[in-house]
């Protein structure tokens, strides 16, 4: 009796194991199919010319220089704006703020903001940054809109990371007479930094692939120059890809695939940079 029951229980465990395994691999499989498809279509178009030429009506002459530079400008400024504000807000809410109605209210709002569709941020950006601030369709307006979009993600992940730092570290610092600032800056934040960094990278990865808010604020599609400052007009990789993919000619669809490969490469580069930084920091800690 007991043994039969045990058998059943092991069977259930095995089924569950199998289920988890296939679900995990399903994600990898889908990614694999996607990569295969995109690589097959786009790889023949990937060469230096594709990276150094501006868009053109001739697929053979077209390149993504303006979009690539635009994306790099956009993402750098987005990071410059959103990282300090996001970490600051996270640290304040987790380490400094008293737990009262007001902070609960702020909490709830940030959690909700993380779920707002990106196009809504585009509309907000259009009204505030483009119109009120008079920034027009500049890199800065785009970066600020993107920052709005990813701030909730950075704040929430910063808080999660801070929460994972054992309270004993704070208590030890306080016991030695450290102020809250000293405790946070010298012990809690460094301990939480790998987690914070993961959050930042996830957030920036989202920003780099967004099209809707950029189209909403009126970011351009055909730009045949490279931005030279934050007030210049720009276009970005996802917009260029979107435009090529919606053209009637098959060659443009293949160019879109090549653009996707470049976008993925930039993304991968960013992610590996984060992994390296995290690795260094963890090493130093030991």
């Amino acid at each position, binding site marked *: 009796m007991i043994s039969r029951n045990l058998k059943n229980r092991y069977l259930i465990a095995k089924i569950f194991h199998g289920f988890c395994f296939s679900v995990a691999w399903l994600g990898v499989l889908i990614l694999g199919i996607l990569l295969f498809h995109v690589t097959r279509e786009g790889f023949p178009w990937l060469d230096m010319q594709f990276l150094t030429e*501006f*868009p*053109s*009506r001739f697929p053979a002459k077209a390149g993504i220089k303006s979009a690539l530079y635009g994306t790099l400008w956009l993402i750098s400024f987005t990071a410059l704006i959103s990282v300090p504000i996001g970490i600051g807000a996270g640290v304040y809410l987790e380490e400094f703020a008293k737990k009262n109605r007001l902070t609960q209210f702020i909490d709830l709002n940030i959690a909700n903001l993380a779920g707002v569709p990106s196009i809504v941020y585009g509309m907000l950006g259009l009204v505030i940054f483009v119109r009120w601030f008079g920034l*027009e*369709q500049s890199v800065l307006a785009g970066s600020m809109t993107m920052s709005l979009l990813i701030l909730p993600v950075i704040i929430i992940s910063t808080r999660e990371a801070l929460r994972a730092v054992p309270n004993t570290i704070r208590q030890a610092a306080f016991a030695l007479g450290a102020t809250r600032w000293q405790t946070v800056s010298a012990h809690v934040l460094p301990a939480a930094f790998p987690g914070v960094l993961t959050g930042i990278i996830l957030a920036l990865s989202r920003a780099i692939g967004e099209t809707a808010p950029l*189209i909403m604020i*009126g*970011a*351009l*599609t*055909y*730009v*045949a*120059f490279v931005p030279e400052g934050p007030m210049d*007009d720009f276009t970005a990789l996802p917009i260029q890809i979107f*435009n090529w*993919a*919606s*053209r*009637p*000619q*098959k060659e443009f*669809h293949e160019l879109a695939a090549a653009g996707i490969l470049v976008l993925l490469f930039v993304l991968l580069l960013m992610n590996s940079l984060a992994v390296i930084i995290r690795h260094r920091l963890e090493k130093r800690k030991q």
Partner: protein
Amino acid sequence: MNRLIMFFALSAVFLLSFGGNSYAEKIAGKIRIDGSSTVFPITEAVAEEFQKKHRKVRVTVGISGTGGGFKKFTTGQTDINDASRPIKKSEQEKAQKNGISYIDLPVAYDGLSVVINPKNDFVDHLTVTELRKIWQPGSAVKTWSDVRPEWPNKAIKLYGPGADSGTFDYFTKAINGKSQASRSDFTASEDDNVLVMGVAGDPYALGYFGYAYYKENKSRLKVVPVDGGEGPVKPSEKSINDGSYKPLSRPIFIYVSNQGSQKSQVKEFVRFYLKNAAELSKEVGYIPLPDKDYQNSLNEFEKWSNTLIGKNQSGLNVKKASFK
């Protein structure tokens, strides 16, 4: 003597080339364009060529859609708007309020193509009345036999562009008599490639979209000749250009604002556009207008922009180019 002639000839050539250069260099600054994604490929092509000649001019083109573009155009944020339909009343009023006057210049034709699956061998043509029967609001047509009794009793699957598109505006106006009036139970997509795939994968499908999308997918689609009262006509470069493909060939436009037309770089760009639109629109899959139409538009534009010189820009002289 010979040497003297040589000298004069050389210096003349030198002066001419120098003069030409300084003229090209003189034009600098920004040209802001936004609007329809349908017109985008032509404007992109013109901008590409224009910037080869005038390297100091920065042309930027957006794709906010015809309506989204007019929002910026009527508040003076852009110099030129790409439009796949004429300006609407409400947009005109907004422009007037903001002191923006404009000229509309047709730059090419697009033939809206009604397409079916290549496996469909019973549809030889459709009349406008039949199309209206299929697409009108609240249409009772569910099967092909509802259109013509001798056709099979198979469900008709409809594909068309979404309500934000100028193509939808034009088709509903031409077929149903009122812009935006359409049955709503069809598969809609803003991306015409999705419509192409839909019709190509379904033997009993019917859809419509711009001619360029049919032309690029000829092997996967069959085009339906449309009878506008004078017998069935297939859309082709010829029938769209000479106007015999009726009523589904539509002109697409650029709108130039009064403020824009007073900037030398924009003026030069518009001239360049009208002089090269015939060739460039063909290259990107559209059908050029008859040559004399470009010449007329050019004359109209010169006349119009000259009347503006020195005038108070808030004077509300909304001028329409003559267009048949």
